[in-house]
């Protein structure tokens, strides 16, 4: 048996590493949801003017769109935000090798997008992330609101794009090393997601639903 540290690391990352990350991710998400739901909320005795649940569900979807005048006031956050989120899901779900992993894991696959397109999306996503980072540092409000976590989470989100791009294009370290780093960077993202603001990936559903519920029952626009 030959000893290739790069291959060993990649195998660990794809095997036990990925399993650990998955368990932490799932446990963490369940924990965060339980933390929310366990608090409960009081029954509202004021007679509603409109269906709260309907408004809650509507708000889950309506907040995907920019709100009145906001895109003009914070264009970088809006454009960068949309591009990054779209890019993240396109690369994750429509890159051939990623689909293969899903197929191995869940037994279902789907057609991917051409590699050059995925690469372009990756670059656009990285540019978008850099843009929102600059917007964070330069805007006095975002600068004041930002803590160490905001910057750490930015790095953790950026790394999978960067390492993936470098691995595919044979940049930097030898391919196996780069691939190992790529898988590890994804696992790092999975592990920190539930315990940082990245948890919004799941909890935004609850936040929007509650907002719509609370205000919609008054017949107010949400």
């Amino acid at each position, binding site marked *: 048996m030959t000893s290739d540290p790069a291959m060993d690391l990649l195998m660990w990352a794809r095997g036990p590493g990925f399993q650990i990350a998955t368990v932490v991710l799932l446990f963490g998400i369940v924990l965060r949801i339980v933390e929310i739901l366990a*608090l409960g909320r009081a029954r509202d*005795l004021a007679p509603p003017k409109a269906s709260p649940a309907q408004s809650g569900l509507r708000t889950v979807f309506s907040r995907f769109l920019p709100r009145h005048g906001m895109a003009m006031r914070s264009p970088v*956050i809006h454009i960068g935000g949309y591009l990054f989120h779209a890019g993240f899901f396109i690369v994750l779900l429509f890159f051939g090798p990623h689909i293969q992993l899903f197929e191995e894991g869940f037994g279902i696959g789907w057609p991917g997008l051409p590699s050059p397109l995925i690469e372009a999306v990756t670059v656009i996503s990285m540019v978008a992330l850099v843009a929102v980072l600059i917007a964070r540092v330069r805007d006095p409000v975002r600068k004041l609101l930002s803590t160490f976590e905001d910057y750490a989470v930015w790095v953790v989100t950026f790394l999978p794009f960067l390492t993936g791009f470098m691995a595919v294009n044979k940049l930097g370290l030898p391919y196996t090393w780069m691939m190992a780093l790529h898988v590890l960077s994804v696992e790092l993202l999975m592990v920190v997601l539930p315990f940082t*603001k990245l948890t919004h990936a799941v909890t935004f559903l609850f*936040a929007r639903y509650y907002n719509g519920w*609370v205000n919609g029952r008054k*017949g107010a626009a949400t």
Partner: protein
Amino acid sequence: MTAATLERGLTALKEHIDAPVAAFFSSCVHCGLCAEACLFYTETGDPKYAPIRKLEPLRRQWRREYTLVGRLGALLGLIKPLTDDELAEWAHLIYDSCTMCGRCTLVCPVGNDLTYMIRKLREGMAASGHARKGLVEAAKKTIKLGSPMGVQLPALNAQIRRVEAEVGLPIPVDVAGVDYMVILSSMEVIQFPEIIGALARIFDRAGVTWTIPSSGFEATNVGIQIGSRDIAEEIVRRVVEAAEKLRVKYVISPECGHAYVALRWEGPNLLGRPYRFEVIHLMELLAKLRAEGRLPLAGKHDQRVTFHDPCQIIRRGGIDQEPRDLLNEITEDFAEMPDAGIWNWCCGGGGGVSAVDEAEHLRTKVFSRKMCQLDEVHPEQLVTACANCRNIIEEGLEAYNKDIEVIGLTELVAEYLAPDETAPAEGGDGS
């Protein structure tokens, strides 16, 4: 009120944190968009007024008490408990620079209802003794005298007699079994008593039976503003007791923003039971009477008017079209300001800010937002449906040397009531 202590404040915060609060704080990504929706930020450019930052004490308490990571951090001494000094420092952000107008709630991309959380955070501030003095005084006056401005029955009676003489119609007081009970804000009784006459004329014309209660006539609820469930409950209880004693079918929430929120939306929850009557906002009632053909209107107001939506009625209350339908009916030249409707900007004095001395300078400064809106339409008159907005806007216009008259919508409607052709002519049969 029992003595306020830090411990009571922290307990109050703990008690008021619920699933929505946890979902909201879990989801915030520090995007800063809430600031762009807040007139205290847009008009000052000071990042400390970012709405989510105002909520920092509540977030800290939530994290420390209700998240695994926060609890571990607290155990290791990494996450410190809130201190009196911190809460005192935050009073400016929580009381002086938030009118609970709800604009930030409407823009948050992850859907956080920040206004909902400010309401809860103020409970902790009041319980820990960090509420603003102006609000504490108003609360004391309300509990002791029945009104935040110290308006008592003799003052109301005097205004009623004056109005009766003016409009030539009786103002019913304590008449049991009628359909509608009218309550008023102190601001209306003292500053804008013409509303009483307007109501008398409209109800007379529409054939509505109504009464004003001799106790429990105060609509404003400082408990909601200062953040005290107990005080809010006591004030709502007075109205509810009066209404149930007089066996009315409806209580009319007057032209006052937060009074509507207090009575219509928070009240049953404060009392822990549904009412034995319905709450209807005056705008809703006027629209209803109009739809039933009981509010015949004639003539058109020829001045150029615009409409200021009170935050608690539009964004936190869902009343949007009613005032517009009425205005379209009775005015020739009704021009909407930019951002009118659900995106309207606050007058700057809602949510108790108008009662806070420390906020006065800032409030006048941020009125520049309303001036920008007005400069787009150049109205001769501004119509609104909240006595507090009305007062704040009058003060703001004066501070900015702008000559625009501010009027209440109900009074304007009363002016354009169609003459009653079925009524006996003057000096008729005299029966």
